[in-house]
């Protein structure tokens, strides 16, 4: 098995799906000749041609609208947003047109919207965001946010094969920073299933995306102090794998939620409610959270470091929780 980066794993998924199914087409800004702003789609145009790899104008609404229309004809479009921050430009198309299509009039929209998200690369307020919760609040969508190359490839393949619109968030901090052995040949990772990344008995850390790595780092530090944290990687935010969360909390009796999204309205609140509804009597302490600040993502490294959750913040909160 070859070691591949997060980015290469995503590219492999696109290549393999386009090879497997001629109905898979890609469209987005600068994805063809240039190969994408992050080079995720490099090589696709050479192989699959102009009709299946479409460079678009800077028109996010047109990209999403056209992808939706293509999907009505039986194609399976994968739309790239150059930075996921620009998803705000096509919010209406996604939440009103695409998401409600199947419920309202029985027309499935088998399309994927993917793009680089998240902070830590000094991108400033418009190239660092985590807008997943706007869409996790939207029935009809599926929201995927992987943390490892293996998952990124397997989840993207599942997303492309799914009959529903899937938003696929690719944390850009991970693109070239992590490598993993990824099996050659076809495999998928199911949507809507979380995974336990580290077993532990003292508390549960529920997290996803880049914060999964921050949480694992914190868990290793905590282990040196004798605190064994279980780390649950959500992988999919919608539909949410409530079972895996509840199972872990019932075992450890304590819950810390860690996410890179801002605090208010982040998924931590939803998870806290789910645990109160499903495992209240198992709790031995308050549900705590470590999140980004309730501010826009700032530009200067010193500010961004304060804005984003750090491993030491997770360690600190976990210690506080372990004391109960």
């Amino acid at each position, binding site marked *: 098995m070859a070691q591949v980066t997060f980015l290469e794993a995503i590219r492999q998924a696109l290549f393999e799906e386009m090879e497997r199914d001629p109905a898979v087409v890609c469209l987005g800004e600068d994805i063809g000749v240039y190969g994408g702003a992050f080079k995720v789609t490099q090589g696709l145009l050479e192989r699959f041609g102009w009709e299946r790899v479409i460079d678009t104008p800077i028109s996010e609404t047109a990209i999403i609208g056209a992808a939706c229309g293509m999907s009505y004809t039986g194609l399976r479009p994968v739309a790239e947003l150059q930075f996921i921050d620009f998803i705000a430009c096509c919010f209406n198309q996604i939440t009103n047109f695409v998401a409600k299509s199947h419920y309202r009039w*029985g027309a499935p929209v088998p399309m994927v919207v993917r793009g680089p998200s998240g902070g830590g690369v000094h991108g400033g307020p418009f190239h660092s965001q985590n807008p997943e919760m706007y869409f996790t609040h939207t029935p009809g969508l599926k929201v995927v946010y992987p943390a490892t190359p293996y998952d990124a490839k397997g989840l993207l393949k599942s997303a492309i094969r799914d009959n529903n619109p899937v938003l696929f968030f690719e944390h850009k901090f991970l693109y070239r920073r992590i490598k993993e052995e990824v099996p050659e040949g076809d495999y998928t990772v199911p949507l809507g299933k979380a995974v336990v990344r580290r077993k532990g008995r003292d508390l549960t850390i529920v997290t996803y995306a880049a914060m999964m790595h921050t949480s694992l780092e914190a868990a290793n530090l905590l282990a040196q102090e004798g605190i064994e944290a279980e780390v649950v990687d959500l992988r999919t935010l919608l539909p949410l794998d409530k079972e895996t969360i509840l199972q872990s909390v019932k075992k450890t009796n304590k819950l810390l939620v860690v996410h890179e999204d801002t605090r208010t309205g982040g998924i931590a609140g939803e998870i806290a409610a789910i645990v109160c509804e499903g495992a209240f009597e198992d709790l031995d302490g308050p549900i705590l959270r470590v999140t980004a600040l309730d501010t826009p993502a700032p530009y200067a490294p010193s500010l961004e470091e304060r804005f984003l959750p750090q491993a030491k913040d997770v360690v600190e909160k976990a210690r506080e929780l372990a004391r109960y």
Partner: protein
Amino acid sequence: MTRTITREQHLELYYYMRLNRELEDRMVRLFRQNKIVGGLYSSLGQEATSVGTAYALDKRDWMAPMIRNIGALLVKGVPPRDIFTQHMARYTSPTLGKDGTSHFGNLDKLHIVSPISMLGDLIPVMTGVAMGARCLGHKVVAMTWIGDGGSSTGAFYEGLNFAAVQRAPLVLVIENNQWAYSTPVQRQVPVRDLADRAKAYGVESRIVDGTDVVAVHQTAKEAVEQCRAGKGPVVIEAKLMRMKGHAQHDPAEYVPKEMFEYWKARDPIARHEKHLTENKLWDAKKKAEIDARIEKLLDEEQAFAENSPFPPPELAEQGVYCEGCHQIRADWKRPVEEVMPPKASVKAAWNVEDFGGLDEAVAKQAADTASVLASSPSVIPRSVATRDLRGTGSGPQRFLGPQDGPRNDNKRKAATHAPKQKAKAPARVRGRK
């Protein structure tokens, strides 16, 4: 280009317009009886455009109607019962009561895409339908409609621009019905003809009298054929009038009486009836026969709707996701190998034929003017550049993409049947301050 249509087609155009109007008249009565669940939007005065444009489509073609395109739905093959049940929120409606009005579609059989309330959104979606179908090798055309109001949305711009660069087989009908809810078109758009907007996208456009069903149909037919031949997209502006308020609750007191009177004299159905009579295409007996057929059909369809149940409450929880209820299949009408490697493989490079500078004549004029003004020759007075670059495709060719065909030259053709009453223009409405 003059195109003759048969007597049978003339009569069918009448049939659909009359069916459209009678159906809506019945819905007004149902509304007053509280049997319409939500709002009711009238297309009174707009029947010729709805019917005439949709009548240009083949069965295989795709369309996405707007709220006032019940006529288009009927032409495409939607039974009147679907319109009744949609408005009455019955379980037997195409959306099972989940959405109302003309907010429904039919992907597989009729190729109709459902509208949403946000205006303009259908344009990029139908651009995608046109591109997708073309990729699959279907020789189809996608048609959608927008109002004068909706033509100011960003989605209109993005969708039409994308359709233009992709040469998508899209016919976009702008129904200029003079009013966006309560705001007259002059307060929305600073141009007299909305068709002019198409120029900015390099798209051919036509203007037609939207109350003349034959003219509308012939204009639409030409546009559809042009798109089918790979020369799309095409914009059609139909000038007409919304003869009622925005919806039933709106008495439209903001519309000057004279304006209603002007347009009442151009009622599309009365006009077509006159045309049929004058050209001896029917007689009173034939008219009575068609009207009776419509009456009988609507009696049955309305009874069906009124006897239909409301959806069971548990339906509210169902159908958010497709969980295997649909088989999604790409219906390839061309060899799949054409879009698969190695056949699809290309050199990933742009073919740039023009480097985007001013063309020589413009540059010379600019330099001359600049020297007269004794300013730096590199400064191009804006008035010169603007005047000379505006126009009909003689300016610099910006760029040709690899799969692009020849460029449109932005010319706008006059409709075959131009409005006859051109002399007396509609009263221009000035807003009150």
